[in-house]
């Protein structure tokens, strides 16, 4: 009987981590639906970017208030999770505060966790106010209605509850230590929870143990639940921000990739020795589709981008098209990509891992042409994103599909392009007149 808590704990752990592993597998499968791209270049720049942008939060502090609050919550979250390690060891072995022999170091750790926990609570409350009371512009755009808004608040509630549980647990523990309760080793420093402990004055050891145990259990179960909530949430960025900043664009922002499939065809067309009537080579596969109309046409990095998006809206609030009332919102581009990818993933789950065409696609069913054509390719969204997402690259892929596969550019652009074809300039002027400006 004595081992029942240990067994329950191990079960919860196995179940929580098992479920999480399943989610991770699904996530990687979905991301791998994207096209392969070789990103083994520039690895030292990539490491530096990851350390600077993800670990160092360099882009977050561009907006100082939100940046500072975020750094607190982020540090709090990471550092307090050292405590989770102790909880897990205690839970499995049935020990209590197994790291206590670290002595002063332990006291320092627990003390600083408590201070961080309080700071996290303050930040989370301020974050909540920003989202719900101050109604910051970027949190009330159309794409944030419904689940995204709930998700944003949900995370704040979870963090708040977890931190409160942590402090309550410590408070009860502290009180028990004062009462010389057996099993409750005297260890740790409780700069914050000692004030909560004051409320527990006069409670019996039994009641205190119940409080301590309940807080301890809900805290660890909450963390396991949170781990599994990630996959369904914009909070996935706490993991994906790292690979995403690593694989983010390292070329100048203005450089768009040159499609290799097009290069081959253009070379053939321009080669005076190529025989236009030559029989196609044996191994010619189905001609490659140009651009993207659905998620499978995008690269795996673009799909990872979609899962990494924190829905913070920094991109959208910098977007010139969005600021002037156009429908385009780069955040929506990312959210739509993720939603469609999830839909494709569910389709595969339901059909033994094979995707069965569902008559839908990312273009038109999620992202409208009006959005695609409103972009000025200014890169403000790319610059603003705190986790190195490139919404512009998806917009460009969709334009490529519209123009090269469907000849569906707006009329004015078609005129411009036929001018280039005929006159070597986007306007209908004669190429022979190119130098007239000198003598005008």
């Amino acid at each position, binding site marked *: 009987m004595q081992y029942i808590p240990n067994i329950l704990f191990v079960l919860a752990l196995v179940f929580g981590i098992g479920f999480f592993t399943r989610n991770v597998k699904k996530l990687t499968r979905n991301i791998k639906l994207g096209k392969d791209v070789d990103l083994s270049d520039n690895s030292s720049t990539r490491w530096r970017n990851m350390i600077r942008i993800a670990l160092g939060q360099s882009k977050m502090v561009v907006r100082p208030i939100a940046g500072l609050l975020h750094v607190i919550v982020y540090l709090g979250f990471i550092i307090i999770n050292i405590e989770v390690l102790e909880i897990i060891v205690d839970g499995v072995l049935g020990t209590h505060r197994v790291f206590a022999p670290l002595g002063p170091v332990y006291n320092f750790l627990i003390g600083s966790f408590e201070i961080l926990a309080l700071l996290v609570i303050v930040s989370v409350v301020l974050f909540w106010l920003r989202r719900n009371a101050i109604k910051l512009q970027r949190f009330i755009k159309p794409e944030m209605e419904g689940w995204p808004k709930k998700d944003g608040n949900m995370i704040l509630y979870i963090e708040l509850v977890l931190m409160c549980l942590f402090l309550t647990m410590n408070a009860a523990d502290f009180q028990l230590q004062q009462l010389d309760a057996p099993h409750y080793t005297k260890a740790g420093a409780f700069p914050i929870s000692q004030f909560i402990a004051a409320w527990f004055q006069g409670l019996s050891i039994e009641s205190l143990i119940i409080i301590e145990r309940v807080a301890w259990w809900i805290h660890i179960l909450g963390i396991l639940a949170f781990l599994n909530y990630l996959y369904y949430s914009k909070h996935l960025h706490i993991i994906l921000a790292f690979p995403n900043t690593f694989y983010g664009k390292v070329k*100048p*922002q*203005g*450089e*768009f990739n*040159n*499609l290799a499939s*097009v*290069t081959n065809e*253009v*070379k053939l*067309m*321009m080669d005076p020795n190529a025989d236009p009537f030559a029989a196609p080579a044996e191994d010619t596969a189905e001609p490659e589709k140009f*651009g993207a109309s659905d998620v499978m046409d995008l690269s795996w990095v673009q799909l990872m981008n979609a899962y990494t998006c924190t829905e913070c809206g920094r991109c959208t609030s910098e977007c*010139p*098209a969005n*600021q*002037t*009332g*156009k*429908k*385009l919102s780069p955040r929506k581009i990312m959210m739509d990509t993720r939603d469609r990818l999830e839909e494709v993933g569910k389709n595969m789950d339901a059909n033994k891992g094979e995707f069965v065409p569902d008559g839908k696609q990312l273009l038109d069913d999620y992202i409208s042409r*009006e959005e695609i*054509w*409103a972009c*000025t*390719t*200014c*890169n*403000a969204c790319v*610059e603003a994103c705190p986790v190195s997402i490139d919404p512009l690259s998806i917009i*460009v892929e*969709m*334009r*490529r*599909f*519209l*123009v*090269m596969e469907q000849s569906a*550019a*707006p009329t*004015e*652009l078609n005129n*411009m*392009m036929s001018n*280039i*074809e005929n006159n*070597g*300039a*986007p*306007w209908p*002027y004669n*190429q022979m*007149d*190119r*130098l007239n*400006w*000198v*003598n*005008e």
Partner: protein
Amino acid sequence: MSEALKVKTMEEFMAEGKQPEILFWVGSAGSYDDRAKKISRAFVKILNRANVDFAVLGSEESCTGDVAKRAGNEFLFQMQAMMNIEILNGYEIKRIVTCDPHSFNTLKNEYPSLGGSYQVLHHTQFIKELIEQGRLSFEGGMYKDKRITFHDPCYLGRANSEFDAPREVLKKTNASLVEMKRSRKSALCCGAGGAQMFKEPEKGDMDINVMRTKDALETNPNIIATGCPYCNTMMTDGIKAHEKEESVSVLDVAELIANSL
């Protein structure tokens, strides 16, 4: 512009068996657009004054294909690029300067993997170089009492991280430089990029160039300086929308320098 400009084509250089120091890529706007042609002429005036041995391609130059690429037409872009590369490589061009950040970006970043690698400079970078090397000097009294605000072109600034060259060059005019609240990395686009120049904007509640000129006007400038022919058009139209064309002018960095000579 009264002075006669000295402009030689690559063909003429070839005939003389010489190589120019640099090729001036004029670009389609600089060749055909009435407003942008003035910028080309101002830049040539600077080149002439600094005795730069430069060439143009003239009728051998063709659209870089940049705007087709941003519109999604990768085919047309690569056709144009390969045609241009054939000519540039045929003349063994090493260094290119252009007044158009869009040409600058595509020549510098997107041509190399198609076989065309050159050292490419934006005209503000080249002017800065000329000044630093002592090849171009002037008093710069013309704009002494003026307030100038510089609008960063997306394809020079954010896209290629060049924020300082135009500002350093502008300082030589002795005008007072004032920054807009959104500048450098966070500058707002003028609204012309991504092929928007060639189409009507989508439905919205304002035009982007009107919003951007508002940023500029908030600095109380006498002059809005640009470094891109498309920005120039957009800002000029924006000024008109704010009915400020009497009091504020829109000039390219090259024009401000040429006028100071």
